[in-house]
């Protein structure tokens, strides 16, 4: 999906998402995250669910872009920087099918 179509056009748009994500009232709403799964005992079999693979690929693209635009300073293994980028991805693209779409807050505003 092109940047013009998905509604996140510029680095400033991504930074605005990051600010909005961090300005929430966390007594009134949760912190959404899309976490990876890993088995330290051996490899997890690749998913056989085509929709999960497609959504995962969209999340991968989204995370690579937000990481590049938000935290270009990050060294390999900078956990805090990775979490910041992952938080913004989840904040704006949490609902099923939203990974490739424009930003939609994960939940309605607290006073909605």
């Amino acid at each position: 999906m092109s940047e013009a179509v998905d509604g996140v056009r510029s680095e400033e748009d991504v930074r605005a998402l990051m600010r909005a994500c961090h300005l929430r009232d966390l007594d009134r709403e949760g912190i959404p995250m899309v976490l990876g799964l890993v088995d330290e005992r051996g490899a997890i079999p690749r998913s056989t669910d085509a929709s999960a693979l497609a959504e995962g690929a969209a999340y991968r693209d989204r995370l690579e872009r937000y990481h590049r635009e938000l935290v270009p300073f990050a060294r390999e293994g900078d956990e805090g920087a990775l979490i910041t980028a992952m938080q913004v991805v989840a904040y704006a693209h949490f609902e099923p099918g939203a990974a490739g779409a424009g930003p939609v807050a994960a939940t309605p505003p607290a006073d909605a």
Partner: protein
Amino acid sequence: MTRPTLDAATEQLASGHFIRVVNYHSTPRSGAESLERELVRYAELFAPVTLADLDRYVETGTWEHDRPGLIPVFYEGYRNSVDVAAPILDRLGLTGWFPIATSFVDCPPEHQEAFARSHWIALVEEDTRGGRIAMDWDEVGALSERHVILGHTAHHEGYDTVFTDEDLEREVAEPKRLIDAAIGRPTPGFVWLHGSSWGQHPRHDAAVRDAGYRYLFSNTMIHRIA
């Protein structure tokens, strides 16, 4: 050993190995309506995740329900996790995952506010009106009948403040024994303060695994470790 890198995260996503989590802390009664509104929306969109579901997902690599899974996580062991959040989860059929700092639960109620303020446990105004702030052990046991209890150290510590064998025993191993006794079965997982990942130091990894935990939850991934 999987470190929290961009490459690791993108590979997990592209392999279809990911799950949605929503992290909560204090859930005061004054916020119950907005919490319920949020959880109602999640219950419409997502399937609950039991421990058996997570085990199966890691085993097969494929999520087998018709809707994606969602894990609501309620941190620290607040009393309002029991009084406010759990009844909503029960009404909606969601499975909550509750990492608890065991010394917060053990702390006498008159000292719990000071304990929280001393150990990075955030309080809201409603938590400071007097009375017990943390859940008690009977409530931990009752909560475990429908939900999942995880270890979250004793004193809400990060791996970077836990150095000695004595520290590891107090913050990693003893919390597991206390929780296991309260819930009548092994707790499956552990979370460090700040959600630090597996692989920060071999000594800390060994302490978590040797204590008998099967999962480490971090802020970037869920590690199956045993």
